[in-house]
């Protein structure tokens, strides 16, 4: 009898998602879908609001990486006030960068130490009672403590630049509303261990080493699990270096061929389309040049390290070389290598934070600029989870008339579906029963993309997991809960 398996909600991802897998009468996978059940409607309700509210309003989309929305909206607003995207004062641009890399640091630390490490440390078949952050804290106290403190360090950076740890107001159209005082700077540079930037960089390096060691011992899992070829898209610096705050749009295919060659992101509509599917609230973006079927792409740490030519800080560049050598310089298409890439980015963020803290421009007084008003603005950043697009149009009274947001998780919509499909095909198919471990593997595949779904809910540790089986006529056959 044909069956439909529903896994809901997917635990330990930021937010709330649901997976359904349909099996036919012989137990073969006929369809798998990753549904996004939330519908937040931000694009509609920002209409009529003054444009300078966007950085503060739209960041409310997410309690996990609000800084990304804050900055993407601010960059779009920079264009509207006639200074974007390259015209900010050095103090403004560097303060924003510090805010952004602080966020990247805290978000990547949270993801690896608290959300991903339980699966790696304990395995997908482990007792769920220990396969969570509490389990990490009990068995690997140092890791858990480092995770907490690295997150805290990043949040303190956000506080010093945005005014609040979550949902700050620092970036304003055309600049920033504060600089960094010397006391603030020294609280990051010179604080006693461990809350200083050098210790943070050391811990980040330790996390990369931890992963490499784990990889050596678990090659089958890390290399084989949910690996599939794809295109990759991200911003890169104009010289091809990794950059999370600003750059040009680049995409490569699974073999490394450039399919978007460093284009101005303000013209993103010429290159990126969005497909709507009846079964998901979330749109499916694709590269127009390749069409709806083949144009889907991955974003996030894995994609960024595939598009970038180098990383502009020494320790991360060294790790980048090791990472690239593993795939002989070719794009890396292995889903669980996202964790490796994420940790290299964590290390890079720590290094950039230090560089910025040592830069006297952060104490500059020129915070704002203004130019010739435009009535449309596009702003992109590389959020922790990948490329984030904000696009606004305003009327003559400064009110928003149109907003289009493509969030990282939307960009990764098709890849997450592919990852779920991989698990369905390779692990669930033709098995007599669905075990807890199998279901966990579905989650692990999704979690590698660090999706941020709702996003204000913050699901840590154990959440109830519900499995529903349907026959081909949609009748509920079985329901399992944990």
């Amino acid at each position, binding site marked *: 009898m044909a069956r439909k398996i529903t896994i809901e909600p997917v635990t330990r991802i930021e937010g709330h998602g649901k997976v359904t897998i349909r099996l036919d009468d012989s137990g073969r996978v006929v369809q798998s879908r990753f549904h996004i059940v939330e519908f937040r409607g931000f694009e509609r309700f920002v209409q009529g609001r*003054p444009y300078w509210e966007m950085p503060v309003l739209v960041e409310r989309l997410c309690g996990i990486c609000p800084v990304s929305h804050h900055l993407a909206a601010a960059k779009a607003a920079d264009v509207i006030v006639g200074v974007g995207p390259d015209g900010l004062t050095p103090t403004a641009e560097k303060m924003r960068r510090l805010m952004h890399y602080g966020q990247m640091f805290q978000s990547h630390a949270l993801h690896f130490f608290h959300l991903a490490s339980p699966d790696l440390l304990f395995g997908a078949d482990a007792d769920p009672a220990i396969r969570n952050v509490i389990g990490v804290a009990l068995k690997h106290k140092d890791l858990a403590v480092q995770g907490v403190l690295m997150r805290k360090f990043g949040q303190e950076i956000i506080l010093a630049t945005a005014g609040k740890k979550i949902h*700050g107001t620092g970036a304003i159209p055309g600049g920033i*509303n504060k600089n960094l005082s010397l006391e603030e700077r020294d609280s990051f540079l010179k604080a006693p261990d461990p809350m200083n930037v050098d210790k943070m960089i050391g811990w980040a390096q330790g996390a990369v080493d931890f992963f490499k060691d784990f990889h050596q011992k678990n090659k089958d899992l890390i290399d084989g699990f949910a690996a599939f070829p794809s295109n990759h898209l991200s911003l890169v610096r104009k010289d091809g270096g990794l950059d999370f705050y600003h750059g040009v749009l680049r995409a490569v295919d699974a073999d490394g061929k450039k399919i978007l060659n460093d284009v101005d992101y303000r013209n993103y509509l010429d290159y990126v389309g969005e497909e709507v599917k009846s079964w998901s609230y979330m749109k499916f973006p694709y590269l127009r040049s390749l069409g709806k079927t083949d144009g889907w792409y991955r974003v996030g740490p894995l994609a960024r390290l595939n598009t970038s030519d180098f990383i502009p800080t020494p320790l991360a560049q060294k790790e980048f070389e090791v990472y690239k050598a593993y795939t002989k310089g070719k794009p890396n298409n292995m889903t669980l290598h996202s964790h490796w890439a994420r940790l290299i980015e964590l290390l890079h963020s720590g290094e950039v934070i230090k560089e910025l803290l040592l830069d006297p421009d952060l104490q500059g007084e020129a915070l704002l600029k203004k130019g010739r008003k435009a009535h449309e603005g596009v702003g992109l950043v590389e959020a922790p989870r990948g490329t984030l697009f904000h696009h606004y149009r305003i009327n003559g009274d400064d009110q928003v008339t149109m907003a289009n947001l493509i969030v990282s998780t939307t960009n990764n919509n098709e890849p997450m579906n592919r990852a779920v499909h991989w698990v369905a095909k390779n692990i669930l198919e033709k098995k007599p029963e669905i075990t807890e471990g199998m279901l966990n593997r579905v989650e692990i595949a999704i979690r590698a993309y660090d999706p941020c779904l709702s996003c204000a809910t913050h699901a840590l540790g154990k959440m109830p997991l519900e499995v529903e089986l349907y026959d081909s006529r949609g009748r509920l056959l079985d329901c399992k809960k944990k």
Partner: protein
Amino acid sequence: MNKIKFTIDGKECFAEPGQTIMEAAKANGVYIPALCRYEGLKPAGSCRVCTVRVGRGHMAACTQPVAEGMVVENIVPDLEDMRKSLIEMLFVEGNHLCPTCQKSGNCELQALAYRYQMLVPRFPYQFPVRQVEPVGPHLLLEQNRCIQCLRCVRGVKTTDGKAVFGSVKRSGKKKIAFDRDLAAGLSADAAKKAMDQCPVGALLKKEIGFMVPIGKRKFDQKPIGSEFEDKRS
């Protein structure tokens, strides 16, 4: 010297003849919570937050002249609770979303809500449907946040003294309106002044939102009323 002698919450105070309770309280270093009152504008007595009790009568301190021997009750539990409920009603009557409002930290309604530790209003939210309206080239009127204190009606004038704002309709439909032609002539400075006069985030000078960082805003360091209450203690 013909000073009038009276008391507020037992404290002996002196007033000039003709002074209102509010003016005299200020002169004597006593804080009476208020919302529609604005220094330099004729009192309107519209918000009733400054309601005090004299004997068995309740009156708006901003409009009531002091009389010899008055015994005024101000910071007492039942009046404070009444003030809190007024603040709550104002919150539910409009759409006040402090987290994304540029007046946050400088808003008197929010500051009073903090003073009264308002967590959840005891009245149901009305969720009215209201618009943002451009007022001339430099101002926006955010009707969602207007509490109809009438400060703008009293205070925003053209250079030749004409009132730009007025209130129209009655009761639940009452709202602030403005003369388009007069509004078109408001300068950027006048717009800034109008924004500063508005106690909430309803009048917004364009393009200056969020320029003051968190921590440096008016009520970030000093809660509302503390300029008097600190001195008193």
